[in-house]
Each structure stands twice: as C-alpha cells, then as structure tokens.
C-alpha cells in the first residue's frame, strides 16, 4: 500500500474493501440472499393484506344489502302496526268528526248548560 500519496492510498484502500466485499463466501451470500428475499416477502404480504381487507369489507356490505332486499323486496307493502296504547293526535280526531265540531264547541257547551238548567 503506498501511503505517501493520499489519493493513492485511499484508492488502494477502496480497492481492497471492494475486493473483500466481492470475495464473500457462498454461505454468507446465501444468508444475504435469504435475508433480502424475506424482507421483500414481508412487503408483498403486507400489500396483499392491504388489498384483501377492503375487498372483504365490500363483500360483507353486499351480502348485507342482499339480505335486506330479500327480506323486504321492493314494491312489497309494509305493514304498520299501531301500538296498543298509541296516543291519538288532534289531527286524527279532526279527520273522524270534522273540523266543524271544534268550531262549534263553545255552542255545544252552552247548549249543554241550558239543558241542565232547564232540567234541574
């Protein structure tokens, strides 16, 4: 190794390091190859898992939608069952008896009071 010239000894050092890296034995090269393949396989399996999960989610959603459609086909009349003690709204009463009843409510109250007075 020629140490007198800085560039020369550096070039020599690099060449020797290159040589040592190129002359690795077969067992070591095999280990390196397996390590590299394992690292890349990890990435491939992660990529596959990344594709598989959304696909499985989509399939589940489709199955649920199909089940709902089978249970309630479109066009099928849905039955509404009123609860046993459902509160009756003012609008429903009005539909049955007519709006005039409410408008003459004061008159009926007065008539009822007159009848009671004349009867008693």
């Amino acid at each position, binding site marked *: 190794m020629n140490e007198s010239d800085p560039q020369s000894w550096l070039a020599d050092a*690099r060449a020797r390091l290159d040589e040592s890296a*190129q002359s690795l*034995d077969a067992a070591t090269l095999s280990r390196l190859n397996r390590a*590299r393949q394992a*690292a*890349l396989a990890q*990435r491939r399996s992660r990529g596959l898992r990344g594709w598989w999960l959304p696909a499985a989610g989509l399939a589940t959603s489709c199955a649920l939608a199909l089940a709902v459609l089978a249970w309630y086909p479109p066009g099928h009349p849905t039955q509404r069952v009123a609860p046993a003690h459902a509160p009756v709204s003012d609008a429903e009463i009005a539909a049955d008896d007519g709006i005039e009843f409410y408008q003459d409510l004061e008159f009926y109250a007065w008539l009822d009071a007159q009848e009671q007075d004349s009867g008693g």
Partner: protein
Amino acid sequence: MADTTNQRALDGFLKAIERRALRMTELATASREEALDLVQDAMFGFVRHYADKPQDDWARLFYRVLDSRINDWYRRRQVRSRWTGTFLRTSDDEDDDPIVQAPDAADPGPLLRLAGSQAALALDDALRALPHRQRQAFLLRLWEGLDVAATAAAMRCSEGSVKTHLSRALAALRRALEDHQLEDHQ
C-alpha cells in the same frame, strides 16, 4: 404493475448494497454472524418504513437504519458487559468468560485468510481500531460514495461533524498503515 416495478427496484438496490453493508457491519462488530443479523434487521426496517420513498434517498435511508441497528448493538453489548463484569467475573471457567469468547480483532477471519494479503489485514485492523463514528464517516463517505449531506443524514449528525469524523479517520488510518509498513520493513 407499479408495485412490481418497485419490488424489482428494491431487490436490485438491496442486492447492490448488501455486501458492502455486511462488511461495514462486520468491521463494527468483529463478528460475521452478528453482522448478518444486523444487516437482515436493517433490510426489514428499511423495506417496512422507507420502501415508498424516492429511490435517490434509499442509500442514505438504508444506512441510517443500519447505523441505528449497530448503535443498538453497541448499547446491548455495553449493558451485557456491565452485567457480566459485575456478576460473572468470578467464574474460573474460561468458556463463560465473555472476554475470552469475544471475537479476536487480530484474527483475520475466513475472508481475509482467503484474501491472504497483509495490506488487507492491516487495513481491516486499522478500520476496526477506529471509533465507530469515524469508521462510519470513512466507509459511507469514501467507500459507499455518499455525499457529505447524505452521510450526515445516515449518521444523524451535522455535515460539520461528518467532516470532523472523516478528517480524524483519515489521519488515524494513515498513521496506522504507516506504522504497519514500518513494522513490515523491520
């Protein structure tokens, strides 16, 4: 399609870098087995966290992960040697002594025995003797060819620190190799 291309590019990048990464780690740990484990960890960490980054950034990101793994290894070893130093030093059995079992830095190892070069051995010894930061600055900057900014990013320090580490590494290496040459001539 883009994913396959990226996968191929990743494979090519790791293939191109793995041998130098192993040698750098081996110089830091003085153990081929430890170095292989650390490089594998670094590959996993790099692929998991940085594979989607621009390819121009891959080298500095990979070496950043590797440097982090090597630092963790140093920390673990420090803790282990504290424990063994406190509690196991009383053992007479040399098989249990971590100092005896530690890899011998002077042992050239199979690689350098195969290379059979005194100069390569001297270079290896000189690099192993350097403080970790100086060795990393030298190897990343002058062997791996990262620029100062990328070396600083990989080592998580300022560009000024890289220059300081590199300058000290060059001076120490030069001294060590000159000493080696003098010993050879005597």
